[in-house]
């Protein structure tokens, strides 16, 4: 049975009366009455794995909440959601603009700018995640939007306000996250979204169903900064990538492109290709004869994907769970980075039972819903898509080339021939999005695995720590920014608070080079010793022997240290450039 709105509300009530420990406190403030969103946002956060509370600030105190958030909520929120509508800034000005008064628009934009200032102030004064809405087009029930009286004026106003707001506050990679209320209202249907009765009764503008959609969307925005996005989607072929079974129906009998349902399968492939362009890896796991499958890729006119889009493929008769393990190994990523799509409930159940870390999506009964399946899953939502993300797929292809080279040459000659170039520098503003991303997703080569938000990293720097970033390239390509170290260099001895490397560059001596450069900085600053810690996790075994392997000795309190001149030299085959 589908979840009705009232079952969601009851579930939230049950959760509240259960009084379990709450680890994620969300504060909501709005320019209107917003209380109905609470159960939907709360349950969506529950589904995303949070243990949430949701608290609503007194209505219509958006500015006040921005300037003194601590007084608006009973406890310090971990996330603050700010919802506002243009018409709530000034109904009169919106009306004047709609009716043709050109003097109104600058005044409205001034009010939007002042709200943007308040949000910027809030962002600087709180460690909480801040989420601000893109406001919907204004809707005043009494105001004519007739084609004859005010053609397009409200649309123009909306466009100008959204332009200003996104430029000032809701930039794609900025520290304030965006919740697109305008899109929710649009998807729901403007007329159905607005509930006049509730507006005039409670100053609560929206229909119950709109709040359900808004709550889910806000939860996705919040989860995107905290739950790491999946890195690879593995799809079955028959009745998933295309309609029909290639082994039975033959090439000519498959449905790909053309009319229904082939067009839906082709659009599903387009959705995969769009993810691939954002850096998500694609792979197939199919129970078939390999020749049959690749013949489809090569010869079927309707195919959108080509074999070159695939980073890995396992076509054979093994259990799907085995195939997925092989793909994860081959791509050097964790099973918890995989999403598996298959039409067979049996295959889904087998994978789910054997590999619970893998997210499984079953092809919907309604094939028209297949093209939106991956998008609506939210599994690939990402906090800030970085330049490295965009290039990840290309880098994996370069990696295949490197490995092919490695097999023909000896290991040392191979490393020497790579022509590796490492650049270490204090991280600047332009590196911060990638630095925070690495801090929050690097599992394997990570000495301390301390996760930190954008704001927390900035706070450390303000507190006298230094964040170092390392980029790596070789003759096959550019890896981008792949190493981060946070150094507490306030005392005479330096301490490595964070030291991590993306697993893409492990085992080539760059970790030794990175430590060597930092030890060099420490020496230059007059430090005598370098301290470090290793905090074991379920996944960071690859980093376990790094400290003893680099001349470090244990201290009585469980930490490690080395004299700055005792750090092993930077490998000769690496060309190092160090700045700052």
């Amino acid at each position, binding site marked *: 049975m589908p979840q*009705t709105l*009232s079952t969601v509300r*009851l579930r939230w*009530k049950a959760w509240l009366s259960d009084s379990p420990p709450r680890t994620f406190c969300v504060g909501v403030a709005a320019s209107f009455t917003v209380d109905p969103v609470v159960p939907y946002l709360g349950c969506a956060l529950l589904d995303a794995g949070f243990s949430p509370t949701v608290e609503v600030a007194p209505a219509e105190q958006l500015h006040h909440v921005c300037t003194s958030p601590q007084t608006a909520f009973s406890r310090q929120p971990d996330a603050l959601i700010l919802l506002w509508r243009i018409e709530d800034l000034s109904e009169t000005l919106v009306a004047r603009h709609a009716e043709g008064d050109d003097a109104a628009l600058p005044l409205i934009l001034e009010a939007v700018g002042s709200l943007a200032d308040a949000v910027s102030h809030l962002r600087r004064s709180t460690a909480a995640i801040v989420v601000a809405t893109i406001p919907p087009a204004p809707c005043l029930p009494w105001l004519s939007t007739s084609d004859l009286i005010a053609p397009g004026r409200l649309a123009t106003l909306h466009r100008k306000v959204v332009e200003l707001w996104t430029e000032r506050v809701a930039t794609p990679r900025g520290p304030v996250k965006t919740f697109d209320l305008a899109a929710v209202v649009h998807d729901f249907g403007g007329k159905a979204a607005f509930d006049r*009765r509730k507006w*005039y*009764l409670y100053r609560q503008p929206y229909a119950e169903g709109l709040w359900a959609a808004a709550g889910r969307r806000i939860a996705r925005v919040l989860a995107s900064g905290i739950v790491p996005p999946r890195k690879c989607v593995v799809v079955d072929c028959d009745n998933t990538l295309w309609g029909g079974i290639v082994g039975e129906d033959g090439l000519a009998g498959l449905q790909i492109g053309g009319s229904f349902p082939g067009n839906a399968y082709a659009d599903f492939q387009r959705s995969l290709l769009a993810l691939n362009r954002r850096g998500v890896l694609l792979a197939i796991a199919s129970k078939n004869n390999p020749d049959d499958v690749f013949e489809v890729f090569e010869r079927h006119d309707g195919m959108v994907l080509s074999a070159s889009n695939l980073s890995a493929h396992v076509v054979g008769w093994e259990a799907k769970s085995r195939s997925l393990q092989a793909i994860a190994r081959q791509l050097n990523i964790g099973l918890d980075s995989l999403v598996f799509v298959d039409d067979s409930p049996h295959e889904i159940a087998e994978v789910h039972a054997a590999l619970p870390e893998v997210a499984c999506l079953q092809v919907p009964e309604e094939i028209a819903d297949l093209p939106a399946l991956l998008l609506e899953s939210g599994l690939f939502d990402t906090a800030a898509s970085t330049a490295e993300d965009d290039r990840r797929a290309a880098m994996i292809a370069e990696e295949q080339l490197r490995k092919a080279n490695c097999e023909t040459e000896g290991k040392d000659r191979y490393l020497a021939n790579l022509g590796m170039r490492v650049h270490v520098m204090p991280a600047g503003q332009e590196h911060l999005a990638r630095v925070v991303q690495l801090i929050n997703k690097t599992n394997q080569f990570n000495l301390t695995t301390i996760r930190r938000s954008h704001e927390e990293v900035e706070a450390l720097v303000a507190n006298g720590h230094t964040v170092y970033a390392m980029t790596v390239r070789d003759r096959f390509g550019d890896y981008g920014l792949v190493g981060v170290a946070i150094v507490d260099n306030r005392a005479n001895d330096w301490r490595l608070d964070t030291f991590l490397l993306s697993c893409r560059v492990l085992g080539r001596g760059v970790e030794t080079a990175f430590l060597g450069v930092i030890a060099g900085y420490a020496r230059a600053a007059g430090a005598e010793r370098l301290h470090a810690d290793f905090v074991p996790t379920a996944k960071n075994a690859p980093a376990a022997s790094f400290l003893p392997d680099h001349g470090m000795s244990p201290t009585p309190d469980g930490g490690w240290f080395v004299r700055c001149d005792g750090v092993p030299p930077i490998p000769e085959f690496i060309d190092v450039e160090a700045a700052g």
Partner: protein
Amino acid sequence: MTDPLIKVFAECLNIDPSQLSDDSSPDNTPLWDSLAVMTLVAGIEETFSISLSTRDIMTMRSIGIARQVLRGKGVADV
């Protein structure tokens, strides 16, 4: 089996059904505040597949009156 209207009120107000009757109103039911009214309207509209007017919402000052409003809208078995 609990009366369906009492059940909706109990769920929305977070009160045991045994504590509610047709005489229950905001005056004698502590949790029946303006916030609860928003939830009640949504609960009643969804449960009985009807739409309440602002006049209906303003009128429903007790469960008994709510029952009359629903009967007036042709809802059977309330």
